[in-house]
């Protein structure tokens, strides 16, 4: 069953069809959100807001675009207007610490080369990258993360942002230049 069939069913009130639609697209949505913000709570907030908007707007969806494009557009809009719930962005070092604890608790064996020095350097670089990303405008940051970290094509990003490819290139161009300038001493 394709997306359009499921959308029609969901528009008729079939909650199971709606859930199937969510499960088809929610990994991408969460992935974009998780790259755009730096806390799990904020990523989940964005995820939830996206699908609540989809749920509320589903009856008005008229198949003028692919369902996935529509969901991605909503994701972009929610990301761009998102304000961190509690400004509780954790320093990257804490995030990495938490992940390490989780790895230990699952009994995973670490690469011996992944020593404390390496971790500290890596955390430092990640922290600088995050700081540099924060200096970009929301649109620049979103285009930059969608292209560099999520691997979307420029044409796909233009569709998501409802603009022409040239505009996306301009954002990407400015963002890349600023990132390079800010990280020149780090890299």
């Amino acid at each position, binding site marked *: *069953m394709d997306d359009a069939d499921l959308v029609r069913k969901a528009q008729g009130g079939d*909650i*199971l069809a709606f*859930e*199937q639609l*969510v*499960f088809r697209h*929610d*990994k991408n949505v*969460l*992935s974009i*959100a*998780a*790259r*755009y*913000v*730096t*806390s*799990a709570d904020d*990523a*989940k907030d964005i*995820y*939830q807001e996206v*699908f*609540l908007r989809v*749920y*509320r707007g589903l*009856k008005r969806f008229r198949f003028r675009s692919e369902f996935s494009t529509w969901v991605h557009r909503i994701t972009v809009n929610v990301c761009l207007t998102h304000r961190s719930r509690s400004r509780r962005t954790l320093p*990257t070092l804490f*995030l990495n610490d938490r*992940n390490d604890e989780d790895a230990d608790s699952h009994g995973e064996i670490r690469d011996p080369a992944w020593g404390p020095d390496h971790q500290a350097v*890596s955390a430092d*670089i*990640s922290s600088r*990258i*995050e700081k540099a*990303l924060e200096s970009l405008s929301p649109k620049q940051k979103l285009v*930059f*993360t969608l*292209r*560099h*970290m999520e691997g979307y094509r*420029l044409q796909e990003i233009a569709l998501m942002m409802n603009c022409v490819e040239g505009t996306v*290139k301009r954002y*990407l*161009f400015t963002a*890349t*230049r600023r*990132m*390079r300038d800010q*990280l*020149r001493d*780090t*890299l």
Partner: protein
Amino acid sequence: MKHDEYRDLLLLSASGGIDADEQAVLERHLKTCDQCSREYGELQNLHRALTEHRPGIEADERLLNEARQELRIALRKEALRRSAWFSWLDPGEYGPAPRFALGAAFTLAIGFLLGRSLFPPAPVQENLPVASLTPSGGSRPEEGRTKITNVHFIDHGRGTGEIEFTFDAVTPVRMRGSIDDPKIQKVLTHAMLNEENPGIRLQAVHAINRQDVESQDSETKSALIKALAADANAGVRKEALNALRRLPFDGEIKKALLRTLMSDGNPGLRVAAINALDSARTSVSGVDGDILNVLKEKAETDDNNYIRVKARAVIQEATGQ
């Protein structure tokens, strides 16, 4: 092409933003220009750093499951809110009648307030509801433990010697009776859905699970389905699923089990759901299109090995493929 134009190409090339022809032109230029070549190296470093030290957080399976669980709860609240207000006021679904009804109710309320201000009522003589609260059936309020809140004065009794007010009285009530008594069932379903303490919710589902199947009404079934779909505690969801398995299999229970199989983050619950669907298939219903669709998806995508294998086995048995 001017030097600055090559530099623009350089920046875009770092993210793969140029086509193959432009890339070829750029590479020819890099062989002859030290400055651009150095800059190209810097951009390559940037791209490598972004790959190796990816900022942000990983959208892993655990985070996805948490997000799905929270979304399910939010959707349930949204659906309740819509059924209470939105659908009533939505002219698209029900035509203009509700708006007229709302307008009429508003006019009536204004008339009522005007009437009260022009012709104030005589002081009320009879007892307030709390005063007439008497034990009935197997329940009785516990003496001396009534809590009074939200006192609201209506008439301060200036000159008349009488006073009128309302208040909320909360009294603990002890109930004792047959587990199949509808009154007891009502309290249990309320506790199962609304208690904050998961231990109490679990006890409530346990108690419901001990009831005669025949004494369980559609309200209890709906409450169990809600608990299975939205309770934050996996133990409560599991017990609700067990209780649903005792009831006659129907479309609502099928949907609830499919939803659990599709989206519950706890593999134990998904295993219980697929087993329940398999039992229903062999004893009652067979496999319809909805079940097959979900099983096909789970056979491919579920991260739990047992569920993938089981889904394939059920599909094979049901369709002979």
